[in-house]
């Protein structure tokens, strides 16, 4: 009981303080071991918090003992518990598997710095999730962004540099927009604490600055969350980053920004701004729909494996946003469940990519021939996670697809149109996933390219574990579902 009250703070503090320690762990492999232990501890803490939340607790921590509106508060609710699980889980999973791949891609003397950046990125992402005030969210956002720029550029691929520069530019614009919005709200309400904001916005008489703030914050976060059409930084950043970094960031980085977006829109703006539901839903829904269709179409014709998966991520973000824009319990739970399930599916796929990349220099689809005979287990995990991405029954992806469609059907005749779009994009997902499968299983191997053996066992074992989780949560989705339903209730209650 006592411990759980401190967990929100420890969750941030431990990885953050461990970052400088990583630099000191110079001997071979030690930095990796240290980072992995920290990530696992973080995951254990996140799991404890999630269990606590499921048992009805809402752990809060006040820095230095200063009460909420004055001091810095950290809090965990059902929604943030899901995100914590995703962030720490992705980080722990990726790190557990990382060693062979990172050894191949990052020079040994730079590895301690690499893992230090990883810890900072993780601490930043966790911080965004647990921070209860808008300014600290910004601070943590900057920490995580700066650290992830380093991570993405940390590989041997020089093309990562322009990709990072693009990401940096877009990310800075996004963060600045967010900060402008927060500044405007602070000007009008005099508070940064989100809960306090919620109460005080009602007293504001001149609503125009708040409207402008809502616009800035929504756009800024949409940029960071890679919402179509603000996604242009994603494909290159994901493609050229070291493979393990892609696993980590693809599974959680954009989702954390989505989390803040949804939280702000529901808790702060929804109840206080007249017609905000219209502005929010009507603004985001078309972007979500376009994102789903266009990004899926791009993925269908993409020739590079990582880039293909990155495009698919943009489409999947569209799903999450689409459901969030329904402003209904079912829609929001679908959103939150899909956050979780997509992290599983995409994380698994990028892990499998890392396995393949261990033997293949070139990850274009036409170079991957013959993989199935030499790397049967890796290819099997691609199939399972791919099916989950499509939403075949028996996989985690089906659960979110079912909720998505049910939520769409709830909103009346319009819903049928949305159902048609969701199904159409599922079919597009079949097409692009099958392009990968055909490349792995049926293409003739290219002369002189290709593996002689499976990926290292460490990498492969984690990949298979994630694939198994995709199946497990397809049959027993109770935990994420319960958290999601509670989160949806909480968000809508705040919106009342």
């Amino acid at each position, binding site marked *: 009981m006592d411990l759980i009250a401190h967990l929100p703070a420890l969750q941030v503090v431990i990885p953050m303080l461990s970052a400088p320690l990583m630099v000191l762990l110079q001997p071979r492999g030690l930095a990796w071991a240290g980072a992995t232990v920290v990530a696992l501890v973080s995951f254990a803490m996140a799991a404890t918090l999630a269990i606590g939340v499921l048992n009805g607790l809402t752990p809060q921590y006040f820095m230095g003992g200063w009460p909420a509106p004055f001091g810095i508060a950290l809090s965990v609710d059902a929604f943030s518990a899901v995100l914590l699980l995703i962030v720490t889980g992705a980080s722990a999973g990726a790190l557990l598997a990382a060693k062979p791949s990172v050894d191949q891609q990052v020079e040994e003397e730079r590895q301690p710095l690499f893992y230090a950046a990883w810890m900072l990125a993780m601490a930043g992402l966790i911080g965004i999730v647990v921070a209860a005030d808008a300014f600290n969210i910004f601070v943590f956002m900057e920490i995580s962004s700066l650290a992830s720029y380093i991570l993405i550029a940390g590989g041997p691929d020089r093309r990562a540099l322009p990709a990072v520069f693009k990401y940096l530019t877009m990310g800075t614009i996004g963060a600045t927009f967010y900060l402008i919005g927060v500044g405007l709200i602070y000007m009008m309400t005099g508070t940064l604490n989100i809960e306090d904001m919620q109460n005080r916005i009602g007293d504001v008489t001149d609503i125009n600055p708040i409207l402008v703030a809502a616009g800035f914050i929504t756009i800024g976060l949409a940029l960071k969350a890679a919402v179509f059409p603000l996604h242009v930084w994603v494909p290159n950043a994901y493609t050229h980053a070291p493979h393990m970094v892609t696993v980590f960031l693809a599974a959680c980085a954009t989702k954390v920004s989505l989390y803040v977006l949804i939280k702000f829109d529901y808790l702060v703006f929804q109840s206080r701004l007249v017609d905000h539901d219209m502005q929010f839903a009507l603004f985001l829904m078309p972007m979500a729909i376009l994102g789903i269709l266009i990004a899926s179409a791009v993925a269908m014709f993409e020739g590079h494996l990582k880039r293909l998966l990155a495009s698919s991520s943009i489409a999947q973000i569209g799903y999450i946003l689409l459901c969030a824009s329904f402003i209904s319990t079912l829609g929001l739970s679908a959103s939150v469940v899909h956050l979780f399930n997509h992290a599983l599916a995409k994380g698994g796929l990028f892990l499998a990519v890392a396995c393949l990349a261990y033997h293949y220099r070139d990850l274009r689809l036409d170079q991957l021939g013959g993989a199935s005979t030499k790397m049967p287990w890796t290819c099997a995990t691609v199939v399972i996670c791919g099916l989950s991405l499509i939403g075949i*029954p028996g996989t985690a992806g089906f659960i979110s697809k*079912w909720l998505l*469609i049910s939520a769409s059907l709830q909103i009346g005749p319009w819903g049928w149109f949305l159902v048609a779009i969701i199904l159409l994009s599922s079919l597009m997902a*079949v097409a692009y996933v099958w392009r990968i499968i*055909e490349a792995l299983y*049926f293409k003739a191997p290219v002369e002189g390219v290709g593996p002689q053996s499976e990926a290292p066992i460490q990498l492969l074992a984690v990949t298979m574990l994630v694939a198994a989780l995709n199946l497990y949560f397809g*049959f*027993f*989705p109770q935990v994420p579902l319960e958290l999601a339903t509670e989160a949806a209730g909480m968000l809508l209650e705040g919106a009342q």
Partner: protein
Amino acid sequence: MIAENAILTAIVVPLLGALLIALGGRFGPNIREAVTAITSISLIFVVWGMLPALIAGERPAVEVSQVLPGLSIAFKVEPLGMLFAALASGLWLINSIYSVGYMRGNKEKNQTRFYTCFALALSATMGVAFAGNLFTLFLFYELLTLSTYPLVSHKGDEATVKSARIYLGVLLSTSIGLFLPAIIWTYTAAGTGDFVSGGILAGKLSDTSVGLLLGLFVFGIGKAAVMPVHKWLPAAMVAPTPVSALLHAVAVVKAGVFAITKIIVYIFGVDFLFDSPNSGWLLYVAAFTIITASVVALRQTNIKRLLAYSTIAQLSYVVMAAAILKPLAEVGAAIHMVAHAFGKITLFFAAGAIYVAAKKTEVHQLRGIGRRMPWTMTAFTIGALSMIGVPPTAGFVSKWYILAGAFEANNLVAVFTIIASTVLNAAYFLPLIYMAWFEKEQEGAKEHGEAPFMAVFALCVTALLTLAFFLFNGPVIELESQVVKGLN
């Protein structure tokens, strides 16, 4: 309790078999194929062991897990599913015997994968047969598609992969695009998707919606190959013949028509659908498919493709019989699944045997082959006669029931379709039989005899079953009559 366990065992046995076959592949083909045989025999014991309880009127059911509130994985044995499961499990054994002859005779590669996927497909088939609600049905339906994909693409060359793409593309896109929304719609409208005698949708949907939902189901279940979603079936003929024989004449395609029949009987309810003005179109679509597919079959030059189009037509017999919405016709639909299965598997076995022995795949190459392969061609003839519906073969029995149902409903369209398609069937099968028996072989043709013994043995057994079903169909009809008890 025993019967409840038997349901799960029926699904787990082939699954376990698949695992053991995959392992057994390392110890040589004999072990692997012995495992296959033992698995299929065990499955027969499990499935057929449930029959007495079912005939006594029990309906064992079991719920495995609640995935989402109101959405559970549950199984329930009822006569339609039982018939389907008994049929598929029984024919799997014969097909396994045949496979040994065919695969070895042809020196096929990747045989372990072949037998493994086959067992997986059977597990999925059992799941489809015993599904207690729409969600479970959908789960195993998709699993069946996925587990048969490696079988269709078995050869792995470019043309095969392309055909397999059509196979998977059509089946997955119809099931995700139409079947899934139909299921979710049903759950939303009725609050449940359980298969209940008399249906669950009565009074819950408007007339227009009924027609639309029925359409989503019929075309969403692409495995039933109702036109225009039939293209995958000829495409699937690139698979090794045992796959075409058991899966694309029995398990997969029957899973389709079985699902449609089950949905008509247990989701819509026969009476409800009969009274609904917007359900009549199904009969016409099925009739159209029967006639068109038969005409297309007339023009086929490849034996397996000809059989595929014949299958498309025969599948729509079942759909049409179900769509007549009269008790006798529903029984006819169920019996036709069995009758067609015996006949068509025999025909495919024969086509495969011809390929193994003589490497012949085209219709015109069959001149005089009857003298070289008398057993095979005798079986082929019996199968073909059953397709036409000539006594004393199985095809006659089911046609009789469907016709009786059609007359009962005063449905002249159905009557006419049956007559016309019988003529068409005769038109494409009889010349072939005549050619095989009475025309002279080309000079200098390859010397060959019968296919390997295992293959010939299997096709003789199924030919005998085709004949036997004409005489001993009583228990089946009795069992299936339970489905429609209390209907008018």
